[in-house]
């Protein structure tokens, strides 16, 4: 009798659809010991969510399952809904990605928590309520008594997720499954929650399965990492080994796709993976990764299969560092020779933002941007980073003309362009373009690629001759690595990465001077993100276009940007050259932000700054420093009353704080 909490053997999950039978989970075997925590990492389509739902016994009606899932020795597969009830929420609990939609909008928080203990542990209403309050306090939620009386819509996202976790822990389950629980949250909120989770795991003696696409997050809560690809486990092992010594080519490639501290565009390109994930038919065998693998040779298919390569480290293939096929990308990220860019000492700023404000609404106001001032140098990449509600997207929208500023000026090469799009002249429109977060929605689903790219040329670059236009479109498609066959395709026929490339081609087709990139890679898988970042970088070197790159992901900003601007609650808190901002932390918020970013390297764990409280209410104008009240280095009431002065560290590095150095 082993003491495995969970024992999955040869699990297969197939779905029958209009297009046939396809395989979501293929021959997966996984064992989880008591108190062990594992992280399952994979990109979209790898089957990680399907796997977790199989454990809970919650799959769609068109699913066909076979294999075995043993929980503490008992077979879960084949049990009816009624038979599974005593397990769910009680011995095995699950937390989902979106806390708001996971809570019933018509029931109070208290009710939704009480019912769990009342049902599973047969507690009375009073006892259940006491247990609920205790669980909420365990998650560091002060005012638990107030929360239980409220409805979900009256509570913010970070607190909602903590409530969902508390709900899962009420019956002290043996196994807790978390499916991307912090993906929808800000990085600082995420850091706090991850801390709570790892503490609780210890104190409650639970086993944990943490699913994510972000290896840094998994590093904070799990010891073992399981890498999934296209429905199969390709590698699993201790996190340090997976990071330092991956065996499977996919694992190695995946880790090298991830931007992190120290990985910058001047030194290296990001690793990418050619091709994209295709759905697997139900009866396909063999290596799922072979059509995309760099290390494929004639004999590897025959040797494919999970083997133990070192203690507790299993891999389906050990050719990650095989030498018979040379590496395209360096194993460790070795310095890359880059063409030196012509140092154009243009004094004139491309874009100058003066005292920019944006206020929404008439009766109930929202102060989105509260006076920002900065400049964008030509041919440079400015990264604007911040969490939700900081105003970065709004600022980007004002630059591109989608919103009209409430106050302030935007100067493009000394011309005031603080107008909305329908009032801007053609020249300005041609010069400032935009790339959006969601590539699927930024391309018109009813138009072909040719039309999508060509229209901009027709409208803004006056290329009216159809033949000439087509030739140019083909040229641009080549620049973004897409062939002629893409001309007549519609967006729904393209993968996410391809869609984003088309969007980039569209923006570039008219040779703008500035492109605002609004979280262009946030909706993409890690490997796709890497290829898009490489592309953006290459294009920037090629065409000398400038970028205003907006993101919440500091690792991405660190990779691509020359300058960084940190925003908080509608104001700039720090601005400077990338290296200076990232290494010599000056503003407390920047410090907190950087400490919260999860580390890809498991040996480099940092203690995040514990930020309490929440963002200030956007409906009110802020008097003093926007970060007052949450700042871990707050001086005193001066921070709340007076807006901090600018502390200028050099020509292009400054921040706003009362603390004197």
């Amino acid at each position: 009798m082993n003491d495995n909490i969970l024992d999955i053997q040869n699990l297969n999950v197939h779905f029958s659809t209009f297009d046939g039978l396809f395989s979501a989970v293929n021959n997966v075997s996984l064992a989880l010991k008591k108190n062990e925590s594992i992280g399952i990492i994979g990109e979209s389509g790898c089957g990680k969510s399907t796997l977790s739902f199989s454990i809970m016994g919650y799959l769609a009606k068109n699913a066909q399952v076979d294999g075995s899932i043993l929980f503490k020795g008992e077979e879960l597969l084949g049990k009816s809904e009624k038979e599974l009830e005593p397990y769910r929420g009680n011995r095995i609990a699950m937390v989902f990605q979106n806390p708001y939609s996971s809570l019933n909008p018509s029931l109070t928080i208290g009710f939704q928590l009480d019912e769990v203990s009342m049902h599973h542990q047969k507690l009375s209403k009073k006892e259940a309520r006491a247990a609920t309050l205790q669980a909420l306090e365990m998650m560091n939620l002060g005012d638990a008594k107030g929360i239980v009386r409220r409805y979900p819509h009256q509570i913010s996202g970070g607190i909602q997720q903590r409530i969902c976790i508390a709900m899962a822990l009420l019956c002290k389950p043996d196994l807790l499954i978390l499916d991307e629980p912090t993906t929808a949250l800000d990085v600082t909120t995420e850091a706090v929650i991850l801390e709570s989770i790892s503490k609780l795991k210890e104190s409650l003696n639970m086993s944990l399965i943490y699913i994510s696409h972000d290896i840094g997050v998994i590093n904070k809560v799990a010891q073992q990492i399981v890498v999934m690809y296209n429905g199969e486990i390709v590698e699993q092992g201790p996190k340090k080994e997976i990071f330092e010594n991956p065996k499977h080519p996919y694992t190695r490639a995946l880790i090298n796709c991830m931007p992190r501290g120290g990985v910058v565009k001047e030194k290296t390109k990001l690793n990418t993976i050619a091709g994209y994930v295709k759905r697997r038919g139900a009866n396909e065998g063999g290596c799922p990764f072979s059509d995309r693998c760099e290390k494929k040779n004639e004999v590897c298919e025959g040797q494919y299969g999970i083997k133990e390569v070192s203690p507790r480290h299993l891999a389906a293939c050990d050719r990650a560092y095989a030498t018979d096929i040379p590496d395209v990308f360096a194993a460790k990220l070795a310095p890359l020779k880059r063409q030196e860019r012509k140092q154009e000492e243009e004094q004139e700023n491309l874009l100058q933002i003066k005292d920019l404000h944006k206020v929404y609404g008439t009766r109930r106001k929202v102060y989105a941007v509260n006076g920002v001032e900065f400049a964008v140098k030509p041919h440079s990449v400015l990264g604007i980073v911040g969490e939700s509600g900081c105003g970065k997207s709004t600022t980007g929208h004002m630059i591109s003309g989608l919103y009209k500023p409430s106050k302030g000026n935007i100067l493009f090469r000394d011309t005031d362009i603080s107008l909305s799009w329908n009032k801007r002249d053609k020249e300005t429109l041609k010069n400032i373009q935009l790339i959006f977060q969601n590539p699927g929605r930024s391309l018109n689903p009813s138009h072909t690629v040719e039309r999508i790219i060509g229209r901009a040329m027709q409208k803004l670059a006056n290329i009216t001759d159809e033949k000439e236009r087509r030739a140019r479109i083909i040229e641009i498609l080549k620049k973004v690595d897409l062939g002629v066959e893409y001309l007549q395709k519609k967006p729904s026929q393209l993968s996410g990465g391809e869609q984003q490339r088309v969007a980039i081609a569209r923006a570039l087709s008219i040779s703008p001077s500035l492109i605002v990139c609004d979280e262009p890679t946030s909706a993409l898988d890690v490997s796709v993100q890497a290829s898009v970042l490489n592309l953006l970088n290459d294009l920037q070197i090629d065409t000398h276009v400038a970028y205003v790159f907006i993101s919440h992901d500091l690792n991405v900003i660190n990779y691509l940007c020359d300058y960084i601007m940190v925003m908080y609650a509608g104001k700039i808190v720090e601005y400077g050259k990338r290296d200076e901002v990232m290494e010599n932390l000056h503003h407390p918020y920047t410090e907190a932000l950087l400490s919260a970013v999860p580390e890809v390297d498991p040996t480099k764990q940092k203690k995040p700054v514990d930020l309490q409280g929440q963002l200030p209410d956007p409906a009110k104008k802020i008097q003093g420093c926007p970060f007052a009240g949450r700042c871990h280095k707050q001086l005193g009431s001066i921070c709340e009353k007076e807006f901090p002065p600018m502390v200028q560290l050099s020509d292009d590095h400054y921040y706003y704080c009362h603390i004197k150095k």
Partner: protein
Amino acid sequence: MNRSAQMMLRRLGSLIATLVVMSFIIFLLVEIMPGDVAQMILGQSATEEAVAALRQARGLDDPLLQRYGRWVKGVLVGDLGESVYMQGVAINSILWRRVGHSLVLAFTAFIMFVPLSIFLGVLAGVKEKKPADSVISFFGLATMALPEFVSGVILITIFAVQLNWFPIVSVIPIGQTLFQNLDILVLPALSITFVMFGYVSRMQRSSMIGVMNSDYIRSAILKGMPRKYVIFRHALKNALLPTITIIGMNMGWLFGGLIVVETLFGFPGMGSLLMTAIKTRDVPLIEACVLLITIIYSLSTMITDILYSYLNPRIRFQGGQR
């Protein structure tokens, strides 16, 4: 509760504004109707002078706005004028009894279709794609655009002509009241019920399916709550809420149906009165009936809105921090 008091006032205000505009439009439309009112009262053989004199006496030659003003003043004091066709009988004496009858008929139809549609709609949603759902869905689909007189005629043929369970014509014998003849309500109410059932049950079904597929129901199930409990305690509240709006929005069809059904069955209600008024070009009566229908309909819509705001926690308890 200051905010909701404000909302209430605003709604009331817009209701009144709507009524004013609507009444003016009705007045306008009716007044430009071809045919001389005075001529109709006096008959074909009347002399031109007599007609002109009558027009003068009734102020029919006055400017439009003045006539409108007079009418509104009358309405506000409860004087709806006199019927032309019925030779000067005060409208008030004939209208209100009919209104009462129609309300009873509407109420009967209401208590027939509301519980039935909701129950069957929920049932179909919960048992999606199973036989019960197929049957209920089909019925809903078939009846949702079925004119009330069509179902009425079929009902009459079966239940009145062949089986003789109910009277063919729904009239009240002179000297008796409605309440002494409740059987005349059944077939008319049933005819209206068919159409309303079609629409409401389908909406209820899709609302229920939507709720059952939501993330929060998934959470409830994966918390180990039993299925029946999940349906009744978690799903139902959320699925029923939109139905209130749907029923409110479809009151219009209910009123339209009343007219058709009253005409078919000869039921002495407001609808058949309006029919008569139109046929006989009885201008004041038309204006009065339409005005009344509009008021009742607008009121019912407003009540629906208020009910919805009260029952929806997201609206009732504001102060949502994001």
